[in-house]
Every structure is written in C-alpha cells, then in structure tokens.
C-alpha cells in the first residue's frame, strides 16, 4: 500500500506532465501564429528580396528569375503554403544573403550565441544574486547604496558601450584579456560537434583550447551580463528586504537559528522566484539582442546573423530567426514555470486545483 506522501507525489507528477503537455501544445499554436505574422510582415516591409539575393548589379532578367524561383510572383497565402510545406520537410528555404540553406546557417550560428548567453547568464546569476542578497539583507547600509548606484549605471549603460570600455581597458591597456573572437585567430579550432567551443575543445581533448575559449568568453559575456546583474540584483534585493520583515523569519531568529541558515534556507528560496521569472525572459531576450556585443567582439553568432538578414530583407532567414527567438521564449518560459513550481509550493497546489 502506498503511503500518503507517495500518492501526493504521484499526483503532482501527473499534474506536472499534463501541464507540460498543455504548454507544449499551446506553444505550437503560438509559433504557428507567429510564423504567419512574421511571414506577412516580412513581405510588406520595403525592400526587394530578389535584389538582396542577386546583388546590386543584377539584371532585370536575373531578378525576375529569382522572383519566380522564390515564388515571390505568387500571392501571399500561396507563398506561405510553399514555406510551410518546406518547414514540414525540415527545409526553411535558402538564405538570400548567405545563399545557403537557412538551416545550415542556424546550425552554424546558434551555438556560438547560446554559449555566450549561457555564460552571461551564469555571471549574472552569481553576481546578481550575491549583490541582491547582500543589499537586501543589509538594506539601507553603505553597501545597499553602492549597489543601487552600480545597478542604475548598469541599467543605463548600453551593453556595447560596456563592451568597448572593457575591451579598451582589459585588452588594449592592461593586456589581461583577449580582445576578439572565440579563440585566438591563429589557433586551430576543434572539430565541430556541438558548436560550443569550450565543450568541443574538451570533447577533442584540447584542454588548453577549452581554457583559452573560456577566457575569450569573459569580456563579451560580462558586457551582456551587466544589465542583468543590475536588474536581477535589484529584484532580489526587494524580495529579500520584503521577506526579511515577515513573521516566519522573525520566528526563526527568535529560535536562534544561524543567520546564514536563515538566509540560504528560508529567505532565499521564496525571494528568488520573481528573479527566476525575469532571468528566463532575459535569456531569451539576449538571443536577439546580443548583436552589438557580437559585432564588437567579432563573435560569429546568431544575433548578428539575425540583424544582417533583417537589414538585407532576407525573407526566409527573417522568418526562421523570429521563429527561433519565439521558440526560445516558449522553451525558456516553460522551464521557468517548471522551476517555479518546484520553488513555490503554493503554485504546485494551485496547478493541482487545490
């Protein structure tokens, strides 16, 4: 016979699976809607995709041939039908800019940006949380004041400005960090397996390359992370400050529980829930907004590819890029929701219909 706790655990598991299934179905519909929206928007914004594909010096005959090949001479719904048919066969079309299948481009560029923003997220989680916890715990102290100032500066300064400043000081003046690229220009890259330079280097047994690739991540990742450190730090600080005044914390103090235990065991868990939500959105946001930092650090990433294709009215690539960003938002939001369910028992109970 199962114990009540086992029964409860099973019920929670079932509820979670149902919830995840429902969210996945919803995501498919959202992405479908998004694809229609971006497909039509991309076609009505000014610009000639045939020119983008054939170059400025193309003749009218060449342009017309491309329009026919890309079905641009057909109505929008017919064009969408062709695109959707391709998608269902794993074909997102050919990029007018790179002249390669869009899927090939995505496979090349997405891992570079993912590696960068994962590292940036790691930095922002560690530093943002540390700053938020300390500022919240020692609220209205000098540290809280300094962290507030640093946060405002971090939020107000664009990432690319931070990138240029960091490169100037750490690469050009102090020669402490590498300036551009994922590894030094003259270093041989490991064979591509995952597209993550650090991971691929480790898989190839090139430990020194992995280490160097890590150092190359520091400046661009920190440039991207600054704004999120500031933002997430402030949110955590507010939650900590708010929860510190609650009765259950006072109760723990009265019982003589150690401060560190109160902070890390009882205070942090409920306090980081708003931060986790924001962190998820920040991660997806970085997928499309890292382009200036990628430009400064010569980072061959997805955000830069996205911008280039938009500027060149590369129809197939534009739609694919928006879908990837949409998919990232959907996946990350789902993960965040699952994480919050584990962090916050009240959410679990609500989802179970309790």
């Amino acid at each position: 016979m199962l114990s009540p706790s086992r029964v409860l655990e099973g019920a929670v598991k079932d509820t979670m699976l149902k919830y995840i299934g429902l969210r996945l179905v919803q995501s498919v519909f959202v992405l479908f809607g998004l694809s229609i929206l971006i497909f039509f928007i991309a076609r009505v914004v000014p610009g000639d995709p045939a020119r983008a594909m054939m170059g400025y010096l193309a003749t009218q005959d060449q342009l017309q041939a491309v329009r026919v090949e890309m079905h641009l001479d057909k109505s929008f719904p017919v064009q969408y039908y062709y695109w959707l048919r391709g998608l269902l066969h794993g074909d997102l079309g050919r990029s007018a800019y790179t002249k390669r299948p869009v899927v090939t481009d995505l496979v090349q560029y997405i891992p570079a940006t993912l590696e960068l923003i994962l590292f940036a997220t790691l930095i922002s989680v560690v530093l943002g949380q540390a700053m938020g916890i300390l500022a919240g715990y020692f609220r209205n102290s000098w540290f809280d004041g300094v962290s507030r100032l640093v946060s405002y500066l971090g939020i107000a300064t664009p990432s690319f400005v931070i990138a240029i400043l960091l490169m100037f000081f750490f690469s050009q003046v102090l020669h402490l960090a590498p300036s551009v690229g994922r590894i030094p220009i003259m270093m041989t890259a490991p064979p591509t397996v995952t597209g993550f330079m650090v991971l691929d280097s480790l898989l190839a047994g090139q430990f020194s390359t992995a280490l160097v690739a890590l150092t190359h991540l520091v400046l661009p990742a920190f440039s991207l992370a600054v704004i999120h450190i500031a933002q997430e730090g402030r949110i955590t600080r507010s939650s900590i400050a708010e929860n510190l005044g609650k009765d259950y914390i006072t109760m723990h103090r009265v019982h003589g529980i150690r401060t560190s235990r109160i902070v890390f065991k009882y205070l942090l868990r409920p306090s980081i829930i708003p931060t986790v939500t924001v962190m998820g959105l920040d991660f997806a946001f970085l997928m499309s907004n890292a382009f200036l930092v990628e430009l400064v650090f010569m980072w061959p990433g997805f955000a830069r590819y996205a911008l280039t294709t938009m500027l060149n009215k590369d129809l197939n690539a534009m739609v694919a890029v928006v879908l990837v960003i949409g998919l990232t938002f959907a996946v990350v939001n789902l993960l965040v929701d699952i994480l919050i369910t584990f962090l916050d028992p009240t959410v679990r109970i609500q989802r179970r219909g309790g």
Partner: protein
Amino acid sequence: MRTARFLCVMVAAFALAIGFWCHVSLGAVENVVVVNGQPTITTDPATASDWYDTEAMYNLYSPLVYPTPEGSVRPHLATSWQAVGGDLTHWRFVLRQGVKFHSGYEMTADDVAFSMTRFIAMKSGNSGPLGKVTATVIDKYTVDFVLDKPSALFPETLALFFPVEKALVLANIKTSDKYGDFGDYGEDWLATHDAGTGPYMMTLNVPGTRLDTARFVDYFEGWSNEGWGPDEVPIDRVVFIMEADYTSLMTILKGRQMDLEINGGWTLPQLREIQANKTLDLTSCWAQNVTVYMNTKAVPTDDEHFRKAILYAFDYASVVGPWQAFGNGPTGIITPNMAGYVPIEPQPPVQNLVKAQQELALSKYAKNLKDVKVVYHFCGGLDFEEDVGLQLQADMAKLGVKVEVAGPPWAQFGAECNSAETTPNMTCWLFAPQAFPTHDYYLFSMFAKKGLGWIFESHWYFDDPQIETLLNATRAEADPVKRLAIYTQLQPLIAAHALALYPYQKPTLFAHQSYIAGPKESIPMVGPSENMHNWRINLTLKAQITGQ
C-alpha cells in the same frame, strides 16, 4: 571552507588561462597575414557578386583576362583573343598552356567552356552583362564564345569570369532539380571548397566567419621577387577574418592580431591615429565616388537651372574639411584616378553663391522659392552622407530654399528608388568601382536607358539623344583607345545637364602593419588590388617590430 577552496581553484584556473593566452599570442615570427576581408558571402565564381566575394575570387581563382590600371584588360589565363567575323558576336580565346588548378591538373579549354556554360546556366553573380553565351572547345587551348548579341566589351567583362576545374565540380554535384542533369552544379560544395587556379588555395572556409588560404606554389604567374625589396617575401598564409566594429579592428590592428584591413571604413580620429603610429601604414588603392543624384522628374529638381543652382551653392570645401588630408577631394562622373577623367562643372569645386542665385533666378521656381522643398535622402547610419545633406541644407537656406534631410533604413531607401515617382529629389550614394569595365559601370550603367536602373540611375534622365548614341557607341567600339575617347567626350555632355552633385571622392584606405608591402600594382577596381599575390611580407621587419 569548501566555498573558499572552490573560489581559489576558479581564480587559479582563470589566471592559468590568461597566462596561456599570453603565451599563445607570443609565438615565433610566422609568415601569415591576417586580413579583415570578410564576410565573403559565397566563394562560388558563378554566384559571387558582392564586393567581398570579388576580393576572395581574385585570390582563389584567376580571371580569364586581367584588369589594367587604364581600365582595359591584359592577358591572364587567356594569352590572346579576337573577334571572329565582324559582328562582335563570335570571340575566340587562346589559353595559356601549363596553368595548373590547385589539384595539380592542367587547365584546358574544356574547363573554360564548362565554366562558361555553368556561369550562364546558373543566371547568377556577374553573368548578367554577358547575356547568353555558347562555349565551344576548338582544341585543347582554344575556346570559342558565341554571344546572342554583339558586344565589343566582351573581353573586358571576362575580368569577372573565373574558370573552375570541371572534373572536380562534376565530382561534387548534389542531387537537385535546379539545373537538370547537373543537379546543384556543385554550388553547395563550392561554397566551402575551391576549384581554382588562383595564387591562394582555400584551406578552410567558415562562411561569414573566416576564410583560410595557403600560397599555391605552382601558381602560373610564379612568385618572382622582382620589384620587391630584399626582405620582402611572398605571403605563405592569408587568413581573412570577419567584419567587426572599427573600434575592435583598431584594437587588433594595434595589437598586431590583424595585419591588413581592406575595407577602409576608418573614422577620422582612427586615421589620424594610424598615421601617427610608426609601425602602421595607410595605402590607397582605389576611390569611391560620393554621388548625390537629383531626380529630374520631381519638383523642383526637374528644372535644370535649379539643379545647377544647387551645384554652385554647395560648399565643397567645408564638407571635405579635414578629410582632405586623407585624399578626399574633387571628383566627377568618374574618379580622378581613372584614365580619361574630365573635371566637370563647377571646377574647381568651390561655392559660388552669386552664380547659384543667377541660376535660381532662371529657374521656373524663381518666383515661389518659399513654396518649394528639396527632399534629400541618404542611407540611414552613414554619417558622411548625412554631413553632405546638412551642408546642403545650410547652403540652400542662404538662397531661401528649404532642404529636408532624412536617412531612412537601407531597405526603405532602396525601395524608394524603384521608380521616378517615389524617388526623393536628392539621393546620396557611395559608388565603389565594383563592376568591370569601370568606365562602363560609371557611364553606361548609370546614364544609359538600358543601364542598371534603380539606385544607379535615380536621376531618371534619359532625354538626350546624343548622350544615348555615344553611350551605345562605347559598347560597340572594340578598340579600347577609341572607346576611352568616347568616354572622355561623354563626361562634359552628361555634366551639362547637372544630374548629380559630386561632393568628393573617398579613397579606400587600407591600413596595414609596416612590415606588409604592397600592392605592387594599384588598379582602380575592387578585387585586383586585394589579390595577395600583389603583396609581400617583410619577416625581418616583422621580427624587429614584434620583438620576436
């Protein structure tokens, strides 16, 4: 305690990594040149068309004929050519013997004929001006081309035709219904491999990211050191790296992680910094023409006197200002470094408000100047184009004419120029000599009825029969000297209609380490000057400078 230990390990690892990075950046003197010349979009000669592509083509492949500084062509893969019959539709080319592909096989007429058939069938890249061409092998080293329409310029257009190795391409065809039996015609494979005869062989191509090349020792032109300094040796490896923000490029140029920059987008302070740096040099190879077209079909620039008033009112000296020290200066319909350049009105280019007022008084808008407005558009984000507009705004205000300056994004700006009705009064462009023959590009393509149209002809003026006749005559004249004479005759005739304001020419300045020498031959066209066979490296000087 555990946390402290973990932190110590992390700090130690980071320090180790930095140390290692410093170590790898201090290797021995290598015969490698890192060039900022990406993003190459495609390295397939049949689809390549962009500026960057052409730069890659001149390194990985060889054209059938080679451009000359005079704007004509000289033998290269072909040693001679002639028109067969008198109607300029049939051309015979005799090929150089002993030219090797990177694979080691000898190039023959079969490869050239196949490459031309492929080039035309794929209807892409620079094949447009050729029309329909049928290639026939006459013997191992002779090939005939039959055109669907007469062309005196056919040999010149082949400066952008780069033969590929037939067997290698055929061996790497992917199944596709795009080109019938030829599948994808090897398009995908050629995007990351080369099948050329050029001075450098592709060793790695990560599209849009980097292109690594190695010197082709058996290059048919050889690697003679004649004309070079005693320590200047051929470059063994050339690595083309991706495009970046110019602040970053400055950092890696000064840090000697990059040896040569060939896109020339430096800002004024950066150029001054490079000029002041003893280990860096600036080299000018070809110039771009800043051109402000005036729409002759829109009010008030439809009036010739009004347009002339603009030419006289513009303060050329102010807008060039400090850029003059870097070669920006007077230009015309073609750039001054091109053969047959003719200075056009107003020359010297100085502001003459009196003459501007006289012209304005002759225009049909003289009595209602307050009611007219000139709309000036430039490509959003290009500061120097905005500067031209703002200068014009200030100058025309002195004459009581309002100028509206706006910089829409490129896609919108380009779309505006699809027709005369939607083109603003004035549109600013930076035309680089990226097509060949360059004279034909700056004249026929930009002023003939059958020119390139769109942004290249956003003046929309095709009403002068004499100009049209002469432009057509340039394409019917097979003698380059006589053709050049027609180009010379055409320039003042076109200028007389005041179709464009030419604020200045903008030389493309290559910044490089002083141990890089070149180019040996400067050709006013994108591509040949960036052919690294035309450059050398001084390893002794590099060792001195880098302290290695």
